[in-house]
């Protein structure tokens, strides 16, 4: 059985950032996830905002502290990990006089939290910053250090870098049972695989309650709150230059208009408490509401430009407004990182450090690795490279100039690299490369991508999945069924 110093359960933004942080030390670390790939749970449908630090009070909450710290860490992370990130700034906009008191209060909280560069804006200044705002905008404030990030790209980069530096990533590992004996806890997966670790970090998102329970930790229940998001074509005239927030409501930061880091426009999310942690559907009713709201915020948003619709679940820890990040009081080897909803993605780099410090306090020796850190190879995104750069790459790698996804301009080399990094599902390749994420939604390239995955991974076509077991893409080969 494999033995580790630390096992991190959950390879979303939180778990990945923790594992990545730990990969700097002389430790044996495992990262496990119930899904077929990293970020396939809560993180894949994240809005991808690097928040500005004004939503929560820094005096009283871990959320605001880690949000502000996390925000400042992204520049360094991006330069090492090469994910899509743009500090485009955030505008919070009031669309009626009634909202002005709430806007003022939020602004003052930001000032109190020492948000860098926060600026109250006149109507004139607002339109100078964002000419696409709808005419009903009355006032707002600007947070220049806010931004957007590609959430799955970020998580994948963390995991791949962690793997490169010694962390072992176990896919399709659904922690089902655990026994603590001596210095080790043994965790058994639903499929029977077992691993042992001295410390366990619970970053299991929606399933943090279950993981806490099987580890003998605190009893709590995670409730999913669903958010639907709608993605518009990169040519949409409704793409703003900054993230546009309305004045928030008590339970949600509201529906946003987001110029995504990948170049598209996203509108949403909605916020609906639901009971089922596997519910991921979209509804006509929410779509109509989201379009109506966003059209009131920004000019040029149209259903004509709709490219994709999806939904995600936030892991809400009822009764606890803050993140729950602490050593368990009931199981001494268990570190809880639960209830990580917004601004979890922004906070995640700081959560990584915070959990590392907790582990250190628990007695885990943290010795920095002697060997130099291994750096991921460049992603060589055809969409971002110049023609000359692509031609130069072609001298060594023919596939660098062979374009597979026409809508997002993704080369075969990018897809092959994704498969070689272990992303062998169609969604895994899509999240890693953006292939199939554009206007044709894989109509042209999905069959080609499936062939590339099959060729590079050795998995037969008919066994390929969209996102893991159960989501098989094909039913077999011609001739397998009787013609009747």
């Amino acid at each position, binding site marked *: 059985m494999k033995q580790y110093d630390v096992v991190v359960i959950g390879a979303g933004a939180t778990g990945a950032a923790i594992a990545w942080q730990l990969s700097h030390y002389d430790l044996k670390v495992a990262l496990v996830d119930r899904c077929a790939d990293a970020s396939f749970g809560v993180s894949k449908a994240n809005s991808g905002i690097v928040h500005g630090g004004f939503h929560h009070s820094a005096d009283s909450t871990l959320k605001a502290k880690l949000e502000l710290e996390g925000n400042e860490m992204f520049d360094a992370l991006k330069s090492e990990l090469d994910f899509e990130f743009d500090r485009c700034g955030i505008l919070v906009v009031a669309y009626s006089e009634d909202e002005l008191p709430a806007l003022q209060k939020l602004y003052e909280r930001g000032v109190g939290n020492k948000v860098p560069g926060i600026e109250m804006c006149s109507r004139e200044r607002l339109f100078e910053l964002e000419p696409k705002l709808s005419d009903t905008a009355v006032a707002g404030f600007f947070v220049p250090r806010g931004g957007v990030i590609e959430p799955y790209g970020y998580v994948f980069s963390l995991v791949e870098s962690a793997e490169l530096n010694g962390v072992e990533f176990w896919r399709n590992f659904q922690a089902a049972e655990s026994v603590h004996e001596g210095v080790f806890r043994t965790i058994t997966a639903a499929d029977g695989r077992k691993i042992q670790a001295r410390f366990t970090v619970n970053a299991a998102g929606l399933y943090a309650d279950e993981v806490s329970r099987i580890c003998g930790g605190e009893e709590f229940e995670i409730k999913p709150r669903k958010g639907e998001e709608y993605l518009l074509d990169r040519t949409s005239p409704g793409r703003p230059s900054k993230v546009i927030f309305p004045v928030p409501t008590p339970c949600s930061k509201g529906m946003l208009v987001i110029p995504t880091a990948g170049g598209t426009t996203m509108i949403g999310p909605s916020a609906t408490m639901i009971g089922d942690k596997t519910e991921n559907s979209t509804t006509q009713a929410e779509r109509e509401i989201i379009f109506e709201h966003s059209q009131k915020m920004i000019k040029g948003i149209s259903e004509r430009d709709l490219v994709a619709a999806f939904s995600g679940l936030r892991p809400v820890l009822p009764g606890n407004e803050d993140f729950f990040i602490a050593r368990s009081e009931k199981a001494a080897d268990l570190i809880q990182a639960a209830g990580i909803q917004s601004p979890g993605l922004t906070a995640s780099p700081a959560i990584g450090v915070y959990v590392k410090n907790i582990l250190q306090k628990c007695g885990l020796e943290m010795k920095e690795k002697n060997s130099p850190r291994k750096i991921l190879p460049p992603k060589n995104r055809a969409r971002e490279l110049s023609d000359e750069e692509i031609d130069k790459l072609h001298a060594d790698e023919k596939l660098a100039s062979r374009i597979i996804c026409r809508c997002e301009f993704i080369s075969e080399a990018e897809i092959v690299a994704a498969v070689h990094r272990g992303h062998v599902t169609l969604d895994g390749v899509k999240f890693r490369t953006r292939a199939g994420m554009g206007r044709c939604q894989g109509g042209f390239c999905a069959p080609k991508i499936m062939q590339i995955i099959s060729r590079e991974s050795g998995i037969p076509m008919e066994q390929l999945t969209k996102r893991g077991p159960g989501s098989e893409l094909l039913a077999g080969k*011609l*001739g397998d069924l*009787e*013609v*009747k």
Partner: protein
Amino acid sequence: MKKIICITCPTGCEMDVEYADGKITVSGNRCPRGASYAESEMKDPRRTVTAVIRSGSGKFQPVRTDRPLPRNLINGLLNSILKKSFPEFEPPGPPVHCGWLRS
């Protein structure tokens, strides 16, 4: 009287076909091909069958029958070719030698 749609060309004439005492009367067709299609459809309905077959290299090649086939033979034909591989059939480009499946 039976209403049928002519499938011989994209115009798709809607035809009324009367079949009594072995004699067929067709109306609604805009060309003679309609009348002969209607007659065949009443007496011995046939279709041209197209499919793909697995060639020697594992690639798939489109094929067609060289003439319309009686409808009741189509499933048998498809079941026999879909399960087989045809190593001897390796044309250079996409199609298809008409009549190749005759044997």
